[in-house]
């Protein structure tokens, strides 16, 4: 593989957008699209899309430190949606991005329904390729997961945003709810074009010496390999709702290797998100791309899309996927 030419087998389409690879850099892990290019050898061309940092109507300072903490096979984070506000992003950040390198996806967050709508409206009037609705951020008091854990509220947010944009609308689903499939079904009816599953799981860590929470926000979102099995099942559950509507999923949660990515593709994800794994290996996307391409060649599969949703469930009890 030459430096910036990925094999044709990795090409895929997502909501009508051409992706050079099924890999997507996840919101909150790659800043506003340029940060990782500081690393020599890293290229945005190695991924199909980059999800930009969660953006709100006004600038937010975010949470007090500590914002991150390593846990077994994972990490907690509670950034608190630090961002410069949508107008700054549209006016100053998007014009500096090179849209010939990859697709850029905005991540819309808010504390009220009106804020989600207004931020979506402003991104609609921008060169952004798609809009991800973040109704699953666990680290803010209002909005975020408070909306995302209620199928009714999730659907209302999606329906309202749907009215103000024709761009592909991706709903980022929370794992911190009883029935992710029901939530997906309601969001689908409300007009969601795609899903991202899953956001982080809520968790915490305690410093026993001081008896204080380690994370400044007390609770944070758990990511990394520790959550992969849970994420995989959630993706399968969402896929069972979304497949008949041809609504694609960005599967995400602890993906670190090509084999992890392949599992999500088989479970029904059309694209796969990479986040925490970047922190250990900033060039991990190249390795995952190469591993997926090798697998496809070995299995004589022409396009990565042909692998999506190919899980063999013939031998499984039908009740498995209905379990909350």
């Amino acid at each position, binding site marked *: 593989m030459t430096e910036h030419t990925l094999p044709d087998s990795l090409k895929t389409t997502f909501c009508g957008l051409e992706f050079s690879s099924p890999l997507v850099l996840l919101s909150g892990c790659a800043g506003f699209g340029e940060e990782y290019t500081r690393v*020599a050898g890293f290229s945005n061309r190695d991924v199909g899309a980059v999800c930009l940092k969660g953006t709100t109507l006004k600038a937010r300072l975010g949470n007090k430190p500590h914002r991150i903490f390593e846990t077994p096979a994972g990490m907690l984070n509670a950034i608190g949606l630090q961002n410069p506000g949508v107008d700054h992003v549209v006016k100053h950040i998007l014009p500096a991005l090179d849209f010939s390198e990859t697709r850029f996806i905005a991540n819309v967050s808010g504390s009220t329904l009106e804020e989600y709508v207004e931020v979506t409206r402003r991104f609609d009037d921008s060169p952004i390729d798609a809009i991800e609705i973040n109704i699953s951020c666990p680290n803010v008091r209002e909005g975020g997961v408070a909306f995302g854990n209620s199928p009714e509220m999730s659907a209302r947010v999606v329906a309202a945003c749907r009215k103000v944009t024709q761009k592909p609308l991706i709903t980022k689903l929370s794992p911190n709810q009883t029935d992710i499939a029901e939530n997906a079904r309601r969001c689908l009816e409300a007009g969601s074009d795609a899903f991202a599953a899953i956001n982080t799981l809520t968790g915490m860590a305690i410093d026993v010496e001081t008896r204080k929470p380690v994370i400044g926000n007390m609770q944070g979102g758990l990511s990394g390999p520790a959550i992969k099995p849970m994420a995989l099942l959630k993706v399968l559950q969402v896929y069972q709702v979304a497949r008949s509507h041809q609504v694609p999923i960005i599967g995400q949660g602890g993906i670190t290797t090509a084999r992890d990515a392949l599992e999500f593709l088989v479970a029904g994800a059309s694209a796969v998100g990479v986040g925490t794994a970047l922190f250990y290996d900033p060039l991990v996307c190249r390795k995952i791309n190469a591993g997926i391409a090798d697998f496809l060649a070995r299995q004589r599969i022409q396009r990565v899309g042909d692998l999506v949703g190919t899980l063999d469930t013939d031998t499984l009890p039908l009740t498995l996927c209905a379990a909350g």
Partner: protein
Amino acid sequence: MHPKPHRGTIFLEDAEVLMQERFPGEQYVLRMRAPQCAASALPGSFIHVTCDATLPMRRPMSIMRVSNKDGWVECLYKVVGEGSRMLASRQRGDIVSSLGPIGQPFVLHPERPRLLLIGGGVGIPPMIFLADVLRHDARVQWNPLVLMGSEVPFPFKTRPSTILLPGMPDGVIGCMPLMEDWNIPSRLASQQDFPGCYSGFVTDLARHWLQPLDKNALAEVEVFACGPTPMLKAVAYLAQKLGVPSQVSLEEFMACAVGGCAGCTVEVRTENGPAMKRVCVDGPVFDGASVFPLS
């Protein structure tokens, strides 16, 4: 398209461990081969290293010395947790993944050639790097003083200084031999009654040197510091009280270290009010008065 000068400035290198030397107090000096990092690192730069494949996150470590010619970087760290404990078990010939150099370095101002360098504990390394750069800088006749504090034995054999230093309390004659070799005055502080060391905080020793200086002398002084947060705060306060600028190098838990996750931020006072700055790429060196304003 806009120019993108930031691109490709941080290098991911499989760094061979060339030397790992243990000092009392579970302190280690680690030298590893990372030629691309060595070629562009500056005082204040840090590297983000893997300690073990079983840990999902890297650890940031400030750079103590580099050899561009021989392609190595050297760090001093203390075992404080699982990651540093695992790093301490790395031996000569092992490979550590190094991401660096990262961060905004210390900035020198030729109109302020009297430099007070204050290092506390594992905050000592950037001061050594800075001193090394100063002695090779032919543009300006820098006049540095290095003060170091530690509550565990210093990671070098101390000895009485042969460089006279006005303003120092009686008996404070212990120095770092490497600084002496470089003809740079240094003095040491500790609360552990180490011989030749000032008995107290390194910031109090700094006050002994700074306070007698008159206005004209202070106009030539700038303070550079790295160490524990309470020390940096004391340094920033002292500098502000005397009307002297200070630059402090901070640390915080860090995930990406390239500016992507905003996990390592610190609150900084700016013209436009408070802002959260990333320690990794906006820092680690910040204006002391912005991070620790007196009022």
